[in-house]
């Protein structure tokens, strides 16, 4: 690995939001390929972050800083990658379903997906199915992530999936679900494509759903 890519990986691990874009620019100036900068530098760093988090060596706020650094770097790389026709991880829409005000879990999943390299659009909480359908039409995401923390609002996830079906959008997006009372069995029952028990699992799942892991 070239020195600059190593530095970039370190900047991601350290959550260095200021330096990461500078290093990306420097790498581009040195003539490195955008895709290599992403995969051999930034993603390497993020993989190490994932390993350390799992091992209990890194903590949530540190992981979120790394995710932010990742996004800061991607801001420069994304247009270049798009124009070069490289396949990007894609877009995730996150929402806490209608009637539910619990949003911290959903925020964490969104931020972890950003760390994985996704572009994330957060629709907030108490989001009705129609608004999610609307947002899917508008943003054409690869994944819709739904969160519910109440047994009473879990059914909204089913309604949302139905609404996507009725709008003819269901086969255009993958749907992942989560939240404290949700489990894999429920996810299957309502026809979701996957369930994640925590934010890190959510990001892993998202990668799997777009065929990147």
């Amino acid at each position, binding site marked *: 690995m070239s020195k600059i890519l190593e530095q970039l990986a370190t900047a991601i691990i350290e959550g260095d939001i200021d330096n990461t874009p500078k290093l990306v620019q420097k790498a581009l100036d040195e003539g490195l390929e955008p895709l290599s900068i992403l995969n051999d530098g930034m993603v390497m760093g993020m993989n190490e972050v994932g390993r350390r*988090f799992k091992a*209990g060596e890194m*903590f*949530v*706020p540190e992981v979120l800083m790394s995710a932010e650094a990742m996004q800061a770097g991607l801001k420069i790389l994304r247009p270049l990658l798009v124009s070069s026709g490289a396949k990007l991880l894609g877009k995730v829409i996150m929402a806490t379903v209608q009637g539910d*005000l619990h949003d*911290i*879990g959903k925020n*964490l999943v969104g931020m972890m997906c950003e760390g994985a390299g996704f572009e994330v659009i957060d629709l907030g909480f108490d989001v009705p199915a129609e608004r999610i359908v609307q947002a899917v039409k508008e943003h054409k995401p690869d994944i819709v992530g739904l969160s519910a923390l109440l*047994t*009473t609002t879990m*059914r909204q996830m089913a309604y949302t999936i139905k609404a996507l079906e009725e709008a003819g959008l269901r086969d255009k997006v993958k749907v992942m679900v989560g939240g*404290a*009372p949700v489990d894999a069995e429920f996810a299957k029952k309502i026809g979701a494509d996957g369930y994640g028990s*925590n*934010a890190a699992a959510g990001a892993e799942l998202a990668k799997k759903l777009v065929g990147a892991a």
Partner: protein
Amino acid sequence: MRTNYRVNSGTRFHVFSKDQLEQLFWDTLHILEYTGLDVHHEEAREILKKAGAWVDGIRVRLPSYMVRKALSMAPRSFTLWARDGDPKKNIHIGPGRAYFGPGPTCPNFIDPYTLERRPYVKGDAELVAKVVDALPNIDFCESLGSISDVHVDLSALYEFAYMFPNTSKPIVAWSFRWDDSEAIHKIAITEAGGQEAFERRPNYVHYCEPVSPLVSTFEALDKLIFAARHRVPLVFTPCPIAGATAPCTLAGLIAQAAAESWMGLTLAQTIAPGLPFFMGGVTSILDMQTMIFSYGAPELALAECGLTELAHYAGIPLWNTGGCTDSKTLDEQAAIEGSFSVMAAALCGGDLTHDVGYTESAMTGSLFQLCMMDEAIGWSRRVTRGIEVNEETLAVEVIKSVGPNGHYLRHPHTRKFFKTEFWYPTLCDRHNYEEWSAAGSLPMRERVIAKVREILETHTPPPIKKETRDVIEKVLADAEARVKSTDTKKK
């Protein structure tokens, strides 16, 4: 004659100095005055504006005099009444007292017979109320679960309807909206003997929750307005998560929780001056490794103690949290976490301490945890009662009369005090090894399970009046008809 002699009549414990409390108090008022809260309830905003609040769109800022006036109107001391008038079951809120009870609305329940973790169902609310009624150190009732096998909009009402006949201890009720609040209220006032009788002797408390950070939701305030207009004592309790929906530092967590509570307080006192009001909070941390909101963390207990001191400094009681755990089962972790937070709550005198019996970070209610904590509360209460010091308890004359080499076993002084000076466990085993093994070598866990089952099989709660039973039937039938008609309208 004794002179200039100071007495501690209980065990003392303080988190904050007076200077720190003053700073916390005024900084909380600063938050309310300069940052304010988003208040998602038009009528609430109008009421507050008329009373002097600054309203910009949905943002409401309270000049500090408003909050101080509200604090001065809310009582520090009042009684919550047992529905059957049993004086042993009344709760006398006031300085130097701490009461305990379960929490609400867990999705899961530990089945007391199969020991499985399963969804909470109708009959469970009856079981919980019965056990609450029987346990001597559990003082008020909540359900430990939300009923999964009734129409989703009616789970709060069914919960109350099933608990009310099964305990005469005061209940802390929650609801979704105005209509189920109304139905619950109807049940309670029927038993009390009408609205006026209820106002003099309230037998339940209403519970609502704002959203952290700094949001008063429509639902929370609508329920608050209902309670205030019907003079139902109120619990207004945010659930700020340190490091996620509140500052990571406990002082900031406490100040934000207080600010969120005092917006509710100011509205409630404006509508109903003198209404009993518990400020709240479940104040704990986001575990930065597992991303769990922890119910077993020392920071929960410590922040609750700090918040309690702030509440008491401000002159109102606190809705405290303790006796809960992150453990998934009835084990040593559950015992450690639950007991320490119970002890902390007892020491600081947090007025109503709820969530006793929560396991799995509030996801699963457990009668076993509740029952085990009853013992921990008894233990803690013995400690907080402290050591009485006077001529008789110092017993200099008794020591003299027994002298070297004597014994106290038959001394009248021992006979006089052994029952009150010592606490007697009902679950902790103090037999010797032979006795313990002869009785089956039962670990704590088995003894707890046996005690819960025995209560369920033998305890008969005091009955409710015939007219209350009729009202319960009627409000449930009305509610079923109501949801049926809205459901068909939706289709």
